[in-house]
């Protein structure tokens, strides 16, 4: 239920979602969530009724129990998180001449992979020494090496188990992958 709290001379009606967080804090005693609650209060949350559904509360509890804010089992969230982790690497990250991924490369990589959600199979995502963000699909019938450098394009080379090759030098990010490749790297049925 919404509660009332005070800060300085102002009065706030705490929305039910905050009450839910409060409940979670009670359950988990996680200091991080206490900071989140404080942040919400400082953000001058407007009085507003939000239904505190049991499933919402359960989500908070499950996330808190796993020590995270989002469900890391989801391929889309894992993928984006991995790209952003790569974005934290700085020049010389390999103790040699390893280049950091450019901001544009991070942006392009996210945009590229978002177009394939929610059906894309999970790729291995790595940073190469030349700043390439690489997506690698190692599948029973296809191995696909695809990457972006932040120049607005992507390139790939793939080979099927039967020996068919797919190759592209500089496809625009607006250009979709061929259906033959999508049929391998997504769970979606393509016609």
């Amino acid at each position: 239920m919404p509660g009332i709290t005070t800060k300085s001379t102002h009065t706030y009606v705490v929305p039910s979602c905050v009450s839910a967080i409060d409940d979670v804090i009670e359950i988990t005693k996680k200091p991080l969530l206490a900071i989140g609650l404080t942040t919400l209060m400082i953000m001058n949350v407007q009085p507003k009724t939000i239904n505190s559904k049991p499933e919402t509360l359960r989500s908070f509890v499950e996330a808190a129990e796993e020590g995270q804010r989002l469900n890391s089992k989801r391929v889309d969230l894992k993928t984006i998180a991995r790209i952003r982790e790569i974005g934290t690497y700085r020049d010389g990250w390999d103790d040699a001449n390893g280049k950091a991924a450019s901001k544009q490369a991070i942006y392009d990589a996210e945009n590229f992979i978002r177009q394939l959600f929610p059906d894309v199979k999970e790729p291995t995502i790595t940073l190469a020494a030349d700043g390439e963000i690489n997506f690698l699909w190692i599948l029973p019938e296809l191995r696909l090496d695809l990457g972006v450098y932040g120049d607005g394009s992507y390139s790939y080379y793939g080979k099927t188990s039967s020996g068919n090759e797919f190759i592209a030098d500089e496809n625009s990010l607006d250009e979709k992958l061929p259906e033959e490749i999508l049929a391998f790297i997504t769970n979606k049925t393509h016609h």
Partner: protein
Amino acid sequence: MRYTQEDEKISHSTFGVVKDDEYLLRVLYAPEHLVDGLVIESAISLEDLSTRGFSLDRKTHKDDDLIEQRIVNQTQKNPSNRQSSAISEFLCVDARSISIAAPEQPKENAFIIIDDAQCDNPAHASLYSAQDGLKKGGLRKLRSLLLPLLQLKTAE
């Protein structure tokens, strides 16, 4: 392209041209370069293949202390992605004999390997694409051809 001919040595070379029967080494890290124990494509950067040179150590002339120190330094730089290290080893001629053919063109060597001695590592060699002007898709194909040679026989 920065590469020189394979039968030439650079001015400050200590060990001369890289011979076909020499073994070449490359340090790899897990999980950065390996998935399920197999070396992955991003272990070979396209820029290395095209212009920068893919660094190798010549086994016959290598300095063990230098390689060990390099592993320590590189591991410290990125410990979460470098939880373990391994050294890949292949015969120079096995890389030199890989060929590639453009459509309707005769087969040509895919790679050249040259002496690239450095002041602090005279046993350094570099591998480049032998194909001038390849774009990224073509370079990706090249690295797929090199990858089998880098696979580890024994991992540390």
